[in-house]
């Protein structure tokens, strides 16, 4: 706790990792290490955010992320208010605006938002005074998940620079993949994306303006999982949702599992000691074999613990208005 750096002094919102510098990410990870020490104490409470209000506004089902933010806020002594709501309807937009105005009027210092629509956090940031933290928006971004993934990789492998990370699964719809792309490439990792062609964005990497200055210039795309895993230091499996089969992206979950599921035998293609990660919740037996999910290489439970530490680091580090007052 004592060596925590005030690293986010210039930052008001956490909307994605696209606007984080490498040194800013490193500072968050350093702070998270300090926070993790707090998590291991007997009395897990520090007064850093006493008298501050954090609202978690979750308009899409989530347990893990919401609880993680709630715990992070409470350990830092903030008042945490949880607001949840149903899915999306065409009325939702206006009610989101009104809900947000209400939260602002109640002097929320930080609003943590999860929303099924991409860009909902940007929308709040455009119209409201409080700091906005994106806890997952549609298919766009999930920056705190990416930060905890980075933290976990650094913690386990000692570095991120030069590490090869294979992200396997529903790349087309994945906010985890998008935020990790920003975070991993900024930190110098080699990224390989792998999915059947129907779950790869048609114009992600090889866009018309693709050249060596493109932030994702080094990213590799594979449609065969064996090639993607070859030499990987980290294998990050993404959740495959049943809706993808209904929408015709996949013949069946069974076929996906056979062709892309992360199994022990496929893991042999990866580097010795490669980490297995998953943002959860898992479909065991679909994108990941239970034996792998709970095996020696799995760091999936570490990811959950590290998520709290990383979110504490962000809540602590955001200068205004959460900590400094208005």
């Amino acid at each position, binding site marked *: 706790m004592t060596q925590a750096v005030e690293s986010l002094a210039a930052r008001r919102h956490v909307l994605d990792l696209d606007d984080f510098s490498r040194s800013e990410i490193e500072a968050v990870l350093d702070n998270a290490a300090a926070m993790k020490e707090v998590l291991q104490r007997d009395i897990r409470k520090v007064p850093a955010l006493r008298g501050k209000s954090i609202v978690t506004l979750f308009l899409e089902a989530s347990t893990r992320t919401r609880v993680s933010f709630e715990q992070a806020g409470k350990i830092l002594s903030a008042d945490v208010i949880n607001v949840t709501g149903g899915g999306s309807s065409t009325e939702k*937009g*206006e009610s989101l605006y009104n809900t947000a105005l209400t939260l602002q009027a109640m002097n929320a210092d930080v609003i943590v938002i999860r929303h099924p629509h991409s860009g909902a956090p940007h929308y709040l940031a*455009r119209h409201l005074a409080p700091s906005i933290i994106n806890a997952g928006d549609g298919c766009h971004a999930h920056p705190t998940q990416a930060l905890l993934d980075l933290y976990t990789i650094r913690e386990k492998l000692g570095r991120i620079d030069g590490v090869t990370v294979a992200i396997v699964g529903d790349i087309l719809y994945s906010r985890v993949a998008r935020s990790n792309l920003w975070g991993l490439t900024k930190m110098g990792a080699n990224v390989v994306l792998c999915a059947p062609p129907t779950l790869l964005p048609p114009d992600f990497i090889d866009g*018309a303006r693709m050249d060596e200055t493109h932030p*994702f210039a080094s990213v590799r795309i594979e449609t065969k999982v064996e090639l993607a895993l070859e030499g990987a230091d980290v294998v990050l499996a993404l959740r495959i949702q049943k809706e993808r089969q209904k929408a015709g992206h996949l013949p069946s979950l069974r076929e996906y599992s056979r062709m892309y599921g992360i199994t022990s035998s496929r893991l042999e293609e990866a580097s010795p000691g490669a980490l297995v990660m998953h943002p959860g919740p898992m479909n065991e037996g679909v994108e990941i074999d239970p034996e792998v999910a709970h095996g020696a290489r799995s760091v999936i439970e570490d990811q959950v613990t590290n998520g709290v530490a990383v979110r504490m680091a962000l809540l602590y580090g955001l200068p205004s208005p959460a900590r400094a007052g208005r």
Partner: protein
Amino acid sequence: MSYPRPILIKGGRIVDPSQRRDERGDLLVRNGAIEGIHPDITPPDGARIIDAGSLVVCPGFIDLHCHLREPGFEYKETIATGTRAAARGGFTTLCAMPNTDPVMDSRAVVDFVRRRAREEGAVRVLPIGAVTAGSKGMALAEMAELAEAGAVGFSDDGRPVADANVMRQALSYASGLGLPIINHCEVPELAAGGVMNEGWVATRLGLKAVPRSAEEAMAARDVALAETTGGRLHVAHASTAGTVEMVRRAKARGLEVTCEVTPHHLTLTEEAVLGRGSGGYEPLSVSAYDTNAKVAPPLRSHRDVEAMVEGLRDGAVDLIATDHAPHGRTEKLCTFDDAANGISVLETALGSLMSLVHGGAVTLPALVEKLTAAPARFLSLDLGALRPGSPADVTVFDPGAEWVVDPTAFASKGQNTPLAGEALKGRVAATIAAGEVVYDGRSAA
């Protein structure tokens, strides 16, 4: 009917592409008609004089595609506000799309719109009837009666005529009336849930996308059906290079296939959705996900925009239409997924289109042609020309006037434009519709 005093427009650059006229001179309007054009006309007694020394004088613009929202959606726009917005934009004729409530699929609604336009409209309004009852895409609307009532064409715009057999019958039936079917080409299954163009911006933003093939597949189907039936097909708001190429080839084969393109599809790309200050792969700003850039069909890529402009030049694109689609404030004050499709265009059309002239992509007479003579020809009406005896619909504009778009100053109720705060070069100075000055911005500016 009594007309106000004569109007003499002095010394302007008179551009009338219908007669290949582009020369300086004076234009006199009297009793609702154009009386004459001469190098120097002595002002008649009591004439109102518009000094057009540095201005362009051309036929009033004709918009084949706009949404006036009345009846049913008066909170978005009314015939009164929409036609005033038209006057400010230099438009003297508007074709009103039938996606009102009730849908313009009966004589009663057509009569209502025409009556409101007579009573409250600042400019001429021509109704477009629905293709199918309720625009539901199933049974044909009573098109012959709609034509009798004054419909100038048929469209279910906002929705495609998705059923191929319904489209075939519509093209065939309307051919007997000599009127076009104007289709919003978009295969529903390919567009389902999509909110912007499929491409790197959609990927970057995590937004569900509409591929170009959604438009092209239906346009291709419709070209084939036009050939089968001999009907007149007009592709509304063409937005992709492939669609324009298809129309070009259909014309070459002698089919009655035409298309229009909007000012926004000629001047903006999908990157408008990124908002201000976040071009390319720069970090997104809080103005990303600009709902005012959400429109159907979506704004496309640079390559498509170039193909649209090429189509203007070589004639594959027949005319420019605005697809003016005003919305209420809350319909854009929401997430991108929840936002309504559409842009309020009438008051910015000329300013954005003039960027094509200033940039050397098209000549000024060619641009004016696509806004005047071309739509007049499409409608087979004696409009869009400055001939002695024709209705005095005249637009006077300053091609070099710079101004900044302020939607709160629009006459339209729809303030939904992605151009808010943008500087445009080219502004309407005055608009004369049926012999009356319906807009005079020279004092206001």
